[in-house]
């Protein structure tokens, strides 16, 4: 086992964690503030990837797509929230979960109707093509970019939530929506806004993922289970928790596949089970 190898596996874990964080942060946010387990969240990640492919194909540029696609995905999400979820917040959580399950089916198949069944590839931008030498090993630039992107988005979301007035209102709604309503916060609007923002984050994750994994059907479904694991490990509703959870899952998946290939699939769930047995509310979650 050489140093180069260890470094490479470390970077692999970080890059995967970066992507997972973009998806799970929104999932966690939606749960913390809306108390909804959003099963359709992964599909917004897929929408991001496919919209990204279209945008790159039409404009020919990657960078503007990275900025343009997330708001579009966010608007789609907000519209769906306002037209369906809004009516059933008072019901037990299982109903919201099932409603989003239905939405996921609709969106998944709609994407296939529009884009067809074949996976679609996108090239990374010229700046991020190829590999750089790090500690004696060649590592793709694009994956390094994913590490940086995950960290940057994490910092921005955290600052937004803790240092701005909007963040204050959002946190107030999360703590006690009725009280926040009394104090003059427009709870309905905050919910739609947060849902849309979370979908936009997932969309960003999708655009960023496309050059690495291509845009393909089922990418939403496969990422959502990983994202659930991340959020449950980190604690529902906690952004630092999502960060920690992403790192743990990223490490479990990449190192598991490298060092223990035959048991790799089990490792992630074993870690999650172990953490939940000792801290049923997750690493950064609050006991209810």
């Amino acid at each position, binding site marked *: 086992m050489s140093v180069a*190898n260890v470094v*490479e*596996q470390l970077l*692999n874990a970080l*890059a*995967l964690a970066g992507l997972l964080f973009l998806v799970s942060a929104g999932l966690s946010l939606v749960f913390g503030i809306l108390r909804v387990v959003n099963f359709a969240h992964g599909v917004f990640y897929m929408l991001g990837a496919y919209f990204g492919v279209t945008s790159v194909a039409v404009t020919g540029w990657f960078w503007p797509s990275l900025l343009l696609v997330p708001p579009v995905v966010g608007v789609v999400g907000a519209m769906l929230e306002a037209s369906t979820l809004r009516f059933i917040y008072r019901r037990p959580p299982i109903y919201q979960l099932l409603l989003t399950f239905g939405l996921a089916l609709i969106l998944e*198949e709609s994407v*296939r109707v529009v884009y067809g*069944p*074949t*996976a*679609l*590839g996108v*090239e*990374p931008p010229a700046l991020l093509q*190829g*590999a750089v030498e790090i500690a004696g*090993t*060649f*590592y*793709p630039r*694009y*994956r390094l970019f994913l590490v940086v992107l995950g960290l940057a988005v994490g910092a921005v979301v955290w600052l937004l939530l803790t240092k701005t007035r909007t963040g204050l209102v959002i946190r107030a709604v999360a703590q006690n929506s009725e009280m926040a309503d009394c104090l003059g916060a427009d709870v309905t609007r905050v919910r739609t806004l947060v849902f849309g923002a979370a979908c936009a984050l997932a969309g960003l994750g999708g655009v960023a993922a496309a*050059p*690495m*994994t*291509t845009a*393909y*059907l*089922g*990418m939403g479904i*496969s*990422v959502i289970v990983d994202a659930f694991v991340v959020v449950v490990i980190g604690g529902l509703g906690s952004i630092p928790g999502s960060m920690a959870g992403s790192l743990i899952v990223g490490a479990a*998946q*990449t*190192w*598991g*596949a*490298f060092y223990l*290939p035959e048991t790799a*699939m089990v490792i992630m769930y074993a870690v999650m089970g172990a953490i939940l047995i000792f801290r049923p509310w997750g690493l950064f979650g609050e006991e209810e």
Partner: protein
Amino acid sequence: MKRRHFLTATVVGGTAVTLGGPVFLRRAYAQNPIKIGLPTVLSGGNAQYGIQAKRACELFAKDNKGKGILGRPVEFIYEDTAADPATAVRKAQKLVEKDGVKFLTGTVLSSEALAVSAKCPEWKVLLMSTINGAGALTAKSYNRYFFRINTSGPMGARAVSLYLAESSMKRFFALGSDYAWGRDSVQSFTAQITAAKKEVVAKDYPPVGTKDFASYIGKIKQSKADGVYLVLPGQDATIFLKQAHQFGVTREIKPIMEIVELENMKAVGDAMEGTIGSSRYPFTVDTPKNKAFVKRFHEMHNVYPDMFDGETYEGLEWLAQVITKAGSDDVEKVIEAWEDSKYDGLEGPFFMRKCDHQAVQPGFAVQAVKDPKYPHLIPKILATYPGDKVTPKCRTEEFA
């Protein structure tokens, strides 16, 4: 009044039918279609394979319009299995029991085919594989209701090994999807490469649907092999090739694919140029029959035929030929007529072995190359091997 009127009509009508019975029935028989059921994948990530099977059926229907088989029209019935073996069995059962289908084809995953094939003796229907690669289907899990028209996984591995035996590459890493087809083919490849005095230095089985291959690429790099043998289904192969290219690993370690598909070439693009492997049906085969087929196919669907477009079309044509030879669509008679029969396929002569129902056919080693005449990379044929060199011994996955 009304009721009596109705009764009278029934009696009159009934008498008329009874009297005109024989003629009436004979005509009904002539119109009675031969039904072919496809429990195939039409939704989700593997839908591209179901769509290929469907395209082939559509062209076959067009080519045989008015003729039919035995003068009877051919009817295709599609059911979506969503790539789940249990659902595949349910849909197949529905096709058999409700629609009265006697011939099944279009199963996509080998696991689906294994599940459906096991039920065929009970249902007394014939399952014709045109896609499924797992060697077990015509070996360990053989039953007389299963016929394989397509090149199997071990046969593909054989063609590649024969090609590699003459190359300068010596050490290989084998990466197979963790299911019947992937495991079978890796085993087969290992056995033959070892026999050719070369070496498989390491192997690994990523689960189906792996989206990040970084860890596997790390291992492949570390192995310092000359080539990496890939047995991955469409989407997984596309993702692997993209990522391997980004890691720059494909420059030193040549990817060698069990199946080189157009789908991959379209999705991966130029990064796949130079990749070698086997093809079960390369549309570039230079035979008059194939050229005409490609032309008709392109006219109808506006794309070039991929592997399973070609293999499925051949299956249908051959099935029609043996039903005609049997003079009936009775399953037992068709099985007898098919055994030890010959067929003039798109890429060369086919022969259906009686002992395991594996079609003996030419094997190909191909390379993905650019050609200005086409909008994407195409498989260029590097070598063609006659059927008897690439088909395993009966009901085994071993070669003479």
